[in-house]
């Protein structure tokens, strides 16, 4: 175990990360630190590769250069077996929930236990009901994923993500497409779970208000670079026009309203021959 010898306060540290897909550079020299026990938000416009960043942290993708260190281990240098050991300590909440559609709610939450432990059935039942109780869905244990609303599916997925008692949870767009009530439920769950279970959370999102209300620290990413960082308050009062445009949701600013195009009048008057 090499964990802990680098910096006890930092669980995930990303240094000079470069990653491209095809000829498009998604990350171009990103540095991030995720402190232990806190909720860190990574925000940015759609298509800036926020989900990609989570996949890089989870070792599902390899960086072109730079390092990603999780709990003292460099993720992309681990053998497959070691990587799987590390992943058991990381829960991930996918945008769609990613529940196994052929299993009911109970079996979905029990899945990691059945795959990774040899616990007796009675113990599995107790653990699963505890996790479901934590997300308020103990009564929904017999439903199939297709019968759940989007918000409920995410809560089940959250219960599944915490069954192995991870040290860290990665949330991929947890608030997208939720009605105000289930949004409120998810906000509360993420905050409470992080505090009560002593987790470290990374929330990737572009829902400014909800994310800012629970995050301890925010990184703003755009066009492959970190363009702003700080506590929610500091970010709100940032001097950077880009950060302000993003946080306030303004239509025009450093990110122009118009996609790059030739001059409007000239374009209208000169149809292609």
């Amino acid at each position: 175990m090499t964990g802990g010898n680098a910096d006890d306060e930092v669980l995930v540290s990303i240094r000079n990360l470069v990653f491209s897909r095809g000829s498009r550079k998604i990350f171009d020299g990103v540095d991030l630190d995720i402190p232990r026990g806190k909720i860190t938000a990574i925000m940015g416009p759609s298509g800036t590769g926020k989900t990609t960043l989570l996949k890089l942290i989870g070792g599902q993708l390899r960086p072109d250069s730079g390092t990603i260190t999780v709990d003292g281990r460099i993720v992309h240098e681990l053998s497959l077996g070691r990587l799987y050991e590390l992943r058991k300590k990381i829960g991930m909440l996918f945008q769609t929930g990613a529940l196994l559609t052929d299993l009911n709610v109970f079996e979905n939450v029990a899945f990691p236990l059945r795959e990774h432990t040899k616990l007796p059935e009675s113990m599995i039942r107790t653990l699963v009901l505890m996790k479901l109780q934590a997300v308020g869905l103990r009564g929904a244990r017999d439903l199939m994923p297709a019968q759940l609303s989007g918000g409920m599916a995410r809560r089940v997925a959250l219960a599944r993500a915490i069954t192995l008692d991870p040290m860290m949870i990665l949330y991929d767009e947890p608030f997208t497409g939720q009605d105000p009530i289930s949004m409120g439920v998810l906000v509360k769950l993420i905050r409470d779970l992080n505090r009560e279970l002593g987790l470290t959370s990374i929330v990737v999102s572009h829902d400014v208000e909800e994310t800012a209300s629970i995050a301890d620290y925010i990184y703003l990413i755009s066009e492959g670079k970190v363009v702003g960082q700080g506590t929610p308050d500091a970010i709100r009062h940032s001097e950077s026009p880009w950060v302000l445009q993003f946080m306030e949701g303004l239509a025009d600013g450093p990110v122009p309203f118009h996609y790059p195009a030739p001059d409007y009048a000239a374009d209208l008057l000169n149809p292609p021959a």
Partner: protein
Amino acid sequence: MLALFQKLGYTTLSTLQKLGRANLFILHVVTGLPEILTRVRLLLVQVYSVGVLTVLLVSISGLFVGMVLGLQGYNVLSDFGAEQTLGVMVAASLVRELGPVVTALLFSGRAGSALTAEIGLMKATEQLSGMEMMAVDPVKRIIAPRFFAGCLSMPLLASLFSMIGVMGGYFVGVGLLGVDEGAFWAQMKSRIDFYDDVVNGLIKSAVFGVIVTWIAVFEGYDAVPTSEGVSRATTRSVVYSAFAVLGWDFVLTALMFGGD
């Protein structure tokens, strides 16, 4: 002109890449075998959905193919006064060719397409990716049981097809057209060789089982994770299976029955 060469080169390279991926993939799948042997239940569930649910289709098709063989064979053979050998003709056609080939084609339409669509959709809904993040290898947990279930089911289904087909030929030949019952069975018994015919037919069906299931699970796993991608993968799965089965049937037939 240059564009033509570019396109040709691109197609060749991407085809070769895909073949390479398919081979690495199947190696990965095979390494899942020990795990399956310790959790036989995973395999049995798939044998049911891939194999057992195909039994009705294969039985009915086998019956009709056998009955048609009885009719057609009788027409031709009676011209030479050889209708006594109808049993041989029906059994040989079924055991050597139609059993393995037609079953493989039916199997790819019924079970292969379902496998491709299921796996493709699991990929599109991030279920496979989610499993990876739960430190469960989806290739071993999801793909391997389905692959081995297919390999196991195909020879059994092909045998069933041939058996019911022979019964169909018997009903038409002996029951309807009045071929002598004793001659029908006795000629079949003396002329159909266990090794040359039955075992070779079984080998064929086993090979087809591997090919069809391999194509089906790989196309699903390799699908572009969108609804359009999954639909294309499903089509490709059936089309490639048909080509591969018919092509390999020629090769195997040439090897097994071609020399003498």
